[in-house]
């Protein structure tokens, strides 16, 4: 029992450390506030007119976009973990932590838990902006809550993906390049920003089966009351699958990296 109690308190101590980093690094703070707001405004006011024409009648681009862009932001919210871990490795802080009688896994669980908090903050910022420019929830309170929980779970899953990227990168800069060249395009070839049926026919099957599409469609279903089909379950299955793969993979990578 003592082990579990220490495991929890160590995780909380390190989650707090991870969170304190954000307000103190102006670039991260901008990444979590100004950048998502800017993207929402750019997409709505620049692409909204054109894309809106391709949407089913009765659906505005703001309503269509907000769930999509929130999924994308939340996926990248875990980036703090990748940057933080790569930085800790580079500066030798990991050695200090590993020489302490703390729970060793707390280094990873603390960071990923910290991400849940920053992701919650992101959700508040983005929903607020959305509501200001005309977004409306058109589903039950229960569905909205379920949607928010699903988003946080998605964010948590990608924290583990980013933990793996951070541990596999030689520097924070490399982690940055790696994350953005691989993940960024994948989030675009999905239903996040445009309806999939406007894409070339060869790209449509890829976009339709992109897990991001399931996640975005699930968020739309839960926030807008659009029929969910299997999207919520598929999104949940993918999310849990990603955690099941990347949490152990990150733990394994961590043990390998530090043993050198």
């Amino acid at each position, binding site marked *: 029992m003592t082990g579990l109690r220490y495991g929890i*308190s160590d995780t909380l101590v390190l989650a707090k450390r991870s969170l304190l*980093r954000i307000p103190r690094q102006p670039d991260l703070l901008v990444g979590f506030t100004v950048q998502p707001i800017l993207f929402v405004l750019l997409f709505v006011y620049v692409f909204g007119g054109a894309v809106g024409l391709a949407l089913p009648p009765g659906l505005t681009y703001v309503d269509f976009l907000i769930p999509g862009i929130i999924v994308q932001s939340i996926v990248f919210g875990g980036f703090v973990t990748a940057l933080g871990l790569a930085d800790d490795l580079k500066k030798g*802080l990991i050695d200090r932590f590993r020489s302490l009688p703390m729970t060793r896994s707390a280094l990873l669980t603390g960071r990923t838990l910290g991400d849940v908090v920053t992701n919650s903050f992101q959700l508040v910022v983005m929903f607020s902006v959305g509501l200001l420019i005309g977004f409306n929830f058109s589903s039950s309170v229960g569905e909205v809550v379920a949607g928010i929980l699903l988003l946080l779970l998605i964010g948590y899953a990608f924290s583990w993906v980013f933990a793996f990227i951070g541990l596999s990168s030689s520097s924070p800069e490399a982690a940055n390049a790696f994350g953005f060249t691989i993940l960024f395009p994948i989030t675009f070839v999905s239903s996040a920003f445009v309806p999939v049926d406007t894409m070339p026919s060869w790209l449509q099957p890829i976009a339709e089966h992109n897990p991001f599409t399931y996640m975005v469609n699930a968020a739309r279903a839960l926030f807008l009351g659009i029929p969910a089909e299997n999207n919520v379950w598929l999104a949940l299955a993918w999310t849990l699958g990603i955690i099941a793969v990347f949490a152990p993979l990150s733990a394994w990578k961590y043990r390998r990296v530090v043993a050198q």
Partner: protein
Amino acid sequence: MQTAPAVETSALRKSYGNVHALRGVDLHVESGSVFGLLGPNGAGKTTAVRILTTLLLPDEGSARVAGFDVVRDAAKVREHIGLAGQYAAVDENLTGFENLEMVGKLYHLGRGQPAARARELLASFDLSDAADRLVRTYSGGMRRRLDLAAALVARPPVLFLDEPTTGLDIRSRIELWNAIEALVSGGTTVLLTTQVLDEADRLADRIAVIDQGLVIAEGTPAELKSQVGGERLDIHLCDEQRGEEAVVALASIASDRPFLEDGSVRVPVAERRGTIADAVRQLDDAGIAIDDISVSTPTLDDVFLKLTGHAAEHEGEEAEAQAR
């Protein structure tokens, strides 16, 4: 004082691929002493410290720290050690106080203890004024002091300092030396690695000289120095032409044959006490006038050169750096 050694290793080996960082290292560090591990870059010092602090598993051999096996009882070892220096570090995005408080919490000190201990350490390392500043605004010397403070949060009985003053200017270096000396007087066992011979000479009770993964000499600083020939009288004569006569006259007081070098007579002596007077008397009897006379003590630089065949700090292999 405990009788069990604070650190004991037996035939410790570690390789990174083809690079043999440690090739069978035996160390024995008495409780309450300062032990210096001296060697050039890539000699295996950092690898040894990483194994002793449970950061790295040895390939072969065994090591005990504070009585616990570093492999089987790694968690116990971590409760009894502190690590600072080259690779241990502090978080730049936290304040000095937050860094120490966090470390205290991760050592599982009781409620309220981490904050109290943090304040106490900040005060004793002269960092109270900077306690609430982010560490990224600290100077190099301040960071190292904070790093050392972080290693001391839980009052560990065994402290590992891996090249604690590397990269510091001479003033910060002396400040850190003073801090380490103060610690030792409190009974902490310190294992310190260094490439700086003065540092080992000044701080360590015993020194192991390590080169290419092997301990090539061990002893007190005085013992190591005596291996190079002990102390020596350097005598400059008024008339350099009479050097050979002086060599003959001084043979009876020398521990080894006197010789001529740079216009001076060099006389190896076993015992410093009384030898100057003896030398003056001998030369006076022989009617040879002395211009100047002095006693020179060999430095650890001399020891290093003699033991390894190469000077310290210059020809260090980058094995460890490459392996990382």
